[in-house]
């Protein structure tokens, strides 16, 4: 685990989840569909080897492959590693061996888990067989794991049409990764000030531009921005758009205005929603100020101040 950093550094959990939907080629489709019916398919290369798991193209010759064969559900461990602490998503939740298994009839090996009582019960060369999952959907996880086996050896690979009813043509591969996000020095300073309803930009020591929000470096000069400068709270709408698409999980009625707002003293515009004014009356040069909702770390939106509009020349460089 990551040790706790010093208390002034902000951190927050960040979860990234992506359910990848992937289509299958003809060989992969036959292989994964086969697993659903406890049939293990390999593919024969042009020089006669049997690749299992099968692939669409020969990794050595790059030949397109389609000559499917059925191999045995029994095989031999070619190498192994003892995993004493299974992790999320792995095939077994009790200690197991990772193994490469060359199934009888195949010339290459499949990576999977071996359910064994302990590392002393595993060795290279040991005989194993597939333990099938109770519910099979056409995925590599239809093989629950391997288990020790002392029965007869399977024979040669035999030709197989690869045809099944209702073949699997795609897989959905869910993935979730958990992070602890830390925004670093400049953004931590900015976010902390913002929680106190103060907006602090940072000035480039070289070109003097004030960045809001600061990202830690001036992208023109390539140096750290380290002088904090209070900006706003008022600012000027430099440009805007009218949003007509309702965002998911966002309780804001459409249409509404999303604007670039140059806070007074800032060297560039930030963006925010403009409220407290009909959407069709928002205009470039409109003077606005932030509206904070109770307990919020950042402004909910910006509203008109009632001042006269800013002169174009005062913000034309900030568009």
């Amino acid at each position, binding site marked *: 685990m990551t040790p706790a950093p010093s208390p002034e550094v902000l951190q927050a959990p960040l979860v990234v989840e992506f359910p990848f939907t992937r289509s299958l080629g003809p060989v992969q489709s036959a292989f994964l569909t086969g697993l659903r019916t406890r049939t293990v398919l390999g593919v024969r290369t042009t020089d006669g080897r049997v690749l299992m798991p099968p692939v669409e193209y020969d990794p050595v010759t790059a030949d397109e492959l389609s000559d499917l064969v059925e191999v045995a559900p029994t095989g031999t461990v070619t*190498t192994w590693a003892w995993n004493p602490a299974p992790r999320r998503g792995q095939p077994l939740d009790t200690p197991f061996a990772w193994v490469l298994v060359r199934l009888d009839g195949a010339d290459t090996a499949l990576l999977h888990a071996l359910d064994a009582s302990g590392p002393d019960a595993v060795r290279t060369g040991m005989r194993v067989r597939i333990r099938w999952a109770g519910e099979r959907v056409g995925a590599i996880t239809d093989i629950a794991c391997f288990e020790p086996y002392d029965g007869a050896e399977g024979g040669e690979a035999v030709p197989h049409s690869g045809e099944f009813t209702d073949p699997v043509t795609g897989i959905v591969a869910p993935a979730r990764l958990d992070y602890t996000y830390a925004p670093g020095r400049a953004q931590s300073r900015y976010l902390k000030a913002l929680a106190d309803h103060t907006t602090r930009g940072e000035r480039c020591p070289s070109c003097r531009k004030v960045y809001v929000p600061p990202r830690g470096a001036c992208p023109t000069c390539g140096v750290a921005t380290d002088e904090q400068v209070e900006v706003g709270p008022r600012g000027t709408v430099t440009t805007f758009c009218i949003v007509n698409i309702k965002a998911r999980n966002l309780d804001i009625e459409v249409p509404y205005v999303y604007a670039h707002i140059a806070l007074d003293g800032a060297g560039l515009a930030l963006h925010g929603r403009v409220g407290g004014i009909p959407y069709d009356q928002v205009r470039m040069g409109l003077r606005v100020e932030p509206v904070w909702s109770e307990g919020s770390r950042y402004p909910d939106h910006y509203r008109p101040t009632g001042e006269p509009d800013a002169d174009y020349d005062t913000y034309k460089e900030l568009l």
Partner: protein
Amino acid sequence: MREVAIVAFGQSDHRRESAEVSEVEMLMPVLHEVLDAVGLRADEIDFTCSGSCDYLAGRAFSFTMALDGVGAWPPISESHVEMDGAWALYEAWTRLLAGEAETALVYSYGKSSPGDLREVLTRQLDPYYVAPLWPDSVSLAALQAQALLDAEDAEDAEDTVVDERALAAVAARSRIAAEDNPHAQVTGSPPPEALLEDPYLVRPLRRHDCPPVGDGAAAVVLAAGDTARRLCRRPAWIRGMDHRMEAHSLGVRDLTRSPSTRLAAERAGAFEAPADLAELHAPFTSQELILRRELGLGEGVRVNPSGGALAANPMMAAGLIRLGEAAAAIHRGAADRALAHATSGPCLQQNLVAVLEGDVL
């Protein structure tokens, strides 16, 4: 062919955790260090190329934030690889060879601390047959190590015996060497016999066989011909560089060999003359033994005096650091001809080899 050299190298201190700095805040001092070393401003660099990985940060296009640190606005000539910085260096090298640039800045960085690296790295695997099983990076390296141990049992070994003690010896030698490397994350080691008393992490690998997980950054400056001679007293000339990879599926490979390393080394000219130094990117002890054999490194070659990836393995930077360390040894006259190697992916999936030489002084 145009001559191209590494003329400056810098790296951060590598640490387990760096939450107080953003990526650009971690990277910027290293960029300034290499630019200062050659007396160039960012806007005097013709081409910039970087290496990083969004999966480490968990944020799409995270490299664009790091670009702030090089002064990328107004737009500069720039490229990025979602790979170790060694491959960014390769791209920059081809630009210089083609005469499209006189100077290049190459940098890379990785913060492994925000996520769980062993899980993050499963996402680089075959998404159909392998990634759904979530095999973590240490377990895959352990499969390779076991294959190596088995192979030595089965056949008559060549000259050295590969057993768990030989693996521990690599760990001890690397981390003791790292005591002289102020940037290293892990330094010092008990003797190999004592290391073998520790429990297995993923058998046959113990903790000492594995690289530390950490955050760090590195940068180099490349320059061509007379520009290189002007910027550096003793440029580290890149005599050759090539990268190759293995078949995608672990089960079709002989995990005890690295034919891609050997081929890349041949194409880079590594076997044309003996080297006196090799910086190998071997995150796991067993991988150093495999690489030594493929590269034909004998006793006369100093291997990883920096401590290598066993002393500091910032993802996306550790390969570039091998090139940088080898070049720095040439800069200071501690080596005349050096091999640098970088790897990527599980079980030495992809390998890059470069040959660096200094002029005779």
